[in-house]
């Protein structure tokens, strides 16, 4: 008889057999599989939810604070003539993108429209608001800010970009925390698969030993377990996305109501479909890593010294 050689069809056959075997083994112990699947899905869903939340937060902050406006409040006694005179040089200033001067009456009208205190203001004898100059800087605003603060008859200079800088710092911190949490949960997902595969290996120790005796390579031994890990990863990825979507649809009405109460017309972006292959691919890779880790450990443990 001729010595066997590994043809492409045989190679595909080996993989098909390993895949079918892995699938049927998962199906044969549904409780254990479902448990591992759920743990991995939750470990994937949480960082995904955090990442999505961060993305929405970034879009929201960009939405509500796209300008870096500097608001200059004049002292109460400063009339519009004086205010116009002080503001005039900034109209054509190279460091200013736009300048707008608002009279106390214009300010009061705006305030009455956008504030719940309109009724309270209406009972006042006189307008308490000062004249206001709103400046949008062009380029670096640091020098402009100093010049505005040094102007005469100015009560207070409010720089809107400051809180945005602080918010951005918080968002940057959030990203770091998210990465750390995601790392921990991803490790948890890998370990969940590794544990499932380890249990599978424990029930097949004799089979593995026999296959090794017959000349099976490490790759041949590893293959069905890798399929198990990959399958678990893929199914966990699908379940994680389902959990995420369910969670989002659950909290969306509350968040939207909260945003509306602040007068925001911000809309959540829909879950982007293009990330699904990336999520599923990542989940499969994590499953493969967990399975590889478990099988490699077993092969190391059972290999005689020096072989």
């Amino acid at each position, binding site marked *: 008889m001729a010595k066997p050689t590994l043809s492409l069809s045989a190679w595909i056959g080996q993989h098909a057999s390993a895949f079918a075997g892995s699938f049927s083994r998962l199906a044969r112990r549904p409780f254990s599989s479902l448990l591992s699947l759920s743990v991995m899905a939750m470990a994937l869903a949480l960082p995904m939810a955090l990442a999505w939340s961060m993305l929405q937060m970034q879009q929201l902050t960009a939405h509500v604070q796209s300008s870096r406006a500097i608001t200059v409040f004049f002292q109460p006694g400063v009339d519009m003539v004086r205010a116009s005179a002080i503001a005039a040089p900034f109209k054509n200033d190279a460091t200013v993108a736009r300048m707008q001067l608002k009279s106390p009456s214009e300010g009061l009208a705006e305030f009455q429209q956008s504030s719940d205190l309109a009724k309270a203001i209406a009972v006042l004898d006189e307008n308490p608001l000062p004249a206001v100059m709103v400046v949008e800087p062009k380029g670096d605003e640091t020098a402009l800010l100093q010049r505005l603060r040094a102007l005469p008859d100015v009560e207070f200079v409010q720089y809107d970009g400051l809180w945005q800088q602080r918010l951005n710092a918080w968002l940057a911190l959030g990203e770091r925390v998210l990465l750390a949490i995601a790392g921990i949960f991803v490790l948890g997902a890998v370990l969940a698969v590794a544990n499932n595969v380890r249990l599978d290996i424990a029930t097949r120790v004799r089979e593995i030993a026999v296959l090794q005796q017959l000349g099976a390579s490490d790759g041949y031994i590893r293959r069905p377990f890798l399929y198990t890990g990959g399958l678990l990863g893929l199914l966990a990825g699908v379940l994680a996305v389902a959990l995420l979507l369910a969670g989002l649809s659950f909290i969306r009405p509350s968040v939207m109501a909260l945003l509306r109460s602040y007068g925001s017309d911000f809309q959540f972006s829909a879950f982007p479909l293009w990330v699904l292959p990336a999520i599923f691919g990542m989940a499969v890779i994590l499953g493969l890593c967990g399975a590889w880790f478990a099988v490699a450990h077993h092969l190391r443990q059972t290999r005689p010294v020096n*072989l």
Partner: protein
Amino acid sequence: MTLLRFDNVSKKYPGGHQALDGLSFSVQAGEMVFITSHSGAGKSTLLKLAHLSERPSSGGVWFGGKNLNSIRGRHVALHRRKVGVVHQDHCLLLERTVFENVALPLQIAGCSATEIRQRVDRMLETLGLAERAHYRSIDISSGEQQRVGIARAMVSDPDILLADEPTGNLDPGLAADIMQMLVGLCAQGTAVVIASHDLALVKRMRKRVLVIDKGRLMDDISPEDLADG
């Protein structure tokens, strides 16, 4: 052509047991050799060294002109595919069918499904197991399991077949048939090394006999010497 050569091989296990002590012999391609000894005298260790399940403590085991000590990593698996092994306890996967067990070496070697089916069917027919092909191995008798183990060792047409008490669980008639089959295998060029303490069988076969005691080669009896008594 020398296929297997033990060159002053010693094996001492970590617990201190000296299984082999300066053992030297060689086996030619197509030769049948019996190894007899008391239990624990080193037969199984000898087979393990040839199969690369163990390494010698000293000396060299040569297979097809290559020192097995130099074989590492994935080449260990490739070497084992050239070696058929019949275990005393069968070492079958009991939940799998007879066909699946016999097919294992061919699947590992990467044969096509058609080739596997043809070769396994032929082997099962030869060993009288055709009707048991789709029985689970746990559901057949011990003697049949032994034959399945032999079929599995032979199906991939190995360069050498190492058998540890291959006819231990078989009735005399079937044992004789199996031995004739192994003789036929030798005629095709496969070397067969059989560890057995069934002296009656060994004498009846009139093949070369190595006698081992306490890990040492005590005697190397040729078929002619055996015939002379």
